[in-house]
């Protein structure tokens, strides 16, 4: 969904981090931050978390069960055939189970990332400040319907005071 947003453009990551603090102190809700590099300070300040590691763990368990189940079924149930005098269900299955667990985990984690991010080849992009993929940083504050023009101006002033090189309103 597209909103009208107030956008502050910054040129330095440290200035940006301080600006986020100032804005949050004044009770302004920051919708998003755009940057050319990952900023751990931003993740902490915006209280962002991700459950991706849990998903990966589940995929790993699923992979282990799936692969070992398949090996057991083929070698013990479906067509029991002795190789080299080893038991049908052998410890050597560990190797394939281990490697294919990584296969399943990697592949599904990769897919989950794109599904959660709603990213796909050729997706249309809407970046408020295109230079944030190169050398600028941007703070996005959504303009609520009940926000008056004075409030918007106040936010704009605050953005400028905290070191924004440019403040603008745009659809994002």
């Amino acid at each position: 969904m597209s909103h009208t947003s107030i956008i502050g453009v910054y040129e330095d990551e440290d200035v940006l981090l301080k600006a986020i603090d100032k804005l949050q102190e004044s009770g302004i809700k920051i919708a998003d931050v755009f940057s050319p590099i990952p900023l751990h300070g931003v993740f902490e300040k915006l209280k962002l978390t991700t459950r991706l590691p849990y998903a990966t763990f589940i995929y790993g368990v699923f992979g282990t069960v799936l692969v070992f189940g398949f090996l057991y079924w083929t070698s013990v149930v479906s067509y029991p055939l002795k190789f080299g005098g080893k038991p049908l269900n052998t410890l050597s299955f560990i190797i394939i189970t281990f490697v294919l667990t990584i296969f399943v985990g990697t592949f599904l984690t990769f897919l989950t990332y794109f599904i959660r991010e709603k990213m796909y080849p050729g997706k249309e992009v809407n970046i408020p400040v295109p230079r944030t993929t190169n050398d600028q940083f941007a703070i996005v504050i959504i303009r609520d319907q009940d926000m008056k023009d004075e409030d918007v101006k106040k936010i704009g002033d605050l953005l400028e005071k905290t070191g924004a090189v440019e403040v603008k309103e745009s659809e994002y």
Partner: protein
Amino acid sequence: MYNTKVRGILIHGNKSFSDVSRDIIRPMDDKTPMWWWVTAFLATGLLFWGVWGFYNTISNGIGEWGLNNNVAWGWAIINFVWWIGIGHAGTAFSIFLLILRQKWRTSINRAAEAMTIFAVMSAGLFPLIHMGRIWDGFFIFPYWNTRGPLWDNFISPLFWDVVAISTYFMASFVFWYMGMIPDFATIRERTTSKMKAKVYGILSFGWIGNARGWLRFETAALLLGGMAAPLVVSVHSIVSMDFAVSVVPGWHTTIFPPYFVVGAIFSGFGMVLTLMIVLRKLYKFKDYVTDGHLDAIARILVFISLIMGTAYMTELFMAWYSGNEYELFTFMKNRVTGEYKYAFWTMITCNAIIPQLFWFKKIRKNITMVFIISLFINLGMWFERYVIVVTSLSKDFLPATWATYQPTFTEIAIFAGTIGLFILGVLTFFRFVPTLAISEIKGVLKETTTLKSFTDESH
């Protein structure tokens, strides 16, 4: 927490973020240079020669190779292991150094990963063509069939190899591609060409670089890296088991898995060094791939070279200490003093002795010398696989079946073809993909500039 800065400045020249983007994308915007066309032409020639080798093998059979009943594995397996070894550098660089939080990796990981992809592709061709009846290649996959169903032998290292290498290829590719997404977005937004904006727009998957996107991106990269790290160890361990689970003297040793893994990282780092020296020279990336970076790789190599030397000595010692006359014969008579002594001593010289020159700072600072030594490492690691495969097979338990082995023109053609494929892959990478990880370099930039002002103040 202690936060000691031991590494010094990673990126020279006081670059800003936009300088970094400009410098790294510049070679992609420039006109295709002459050296690129010349190399591509030569590599295509090699590739066609290899295609002929493939054609000849498929149409006339493995009899076109110099193999015989005793030496049933020749150049194909030597080259397979050699390429796989080279293919270990990318992940070793990206992932081990990521986990060890070595920030200097940022200038090198992209190229090392690209090298991994093309090396593993080259490697994969050898087992495929070695099947002889390549059209039956799908038998290797466990699929529901009308023979019982008769499944694969899941406890055969040859099957483990298929699993390990396809997993390794997939994981390396995914990790590599993932890292490039923000850089493709940078190109998409910077470029003035409509065509490029379109192509890199598709490749960037609609990356916008917002906070949540970065958080998930970083987490995913770390997870993928963490999962691929055990692969670096397991892939070459499994390759070594192709040899070690047999009863052939010289192969049947417990040292093989660690020895192969270390050897793989050694040859991989050797090839990275070769490639990075060429890359920084051609693209004038001296501010990014600094002398300090090359110095760090050289230091790692001298350490790994010592491990290699220790492994060679251990093999010789165990051959004697085990009291097994076949082992003793293979190592002492066949390798050290026998018919294959030139190969053996080339291996020792290139892998265990020449890299010791890296102890001297003067040599580490002399880039020409570093380049030459890196080539010797590549050569030495090829001879290591030659020694392992050929000397053990040519003279085993029954003297009546002893045989010698010479590669034929067809085998040489296939090897040349994979070199052509590798070079073409690397050239494509040089031309169409940011060769250094732009966003990762930006991530370490601030730290190094802060460090710079810190040192300035202390003066």
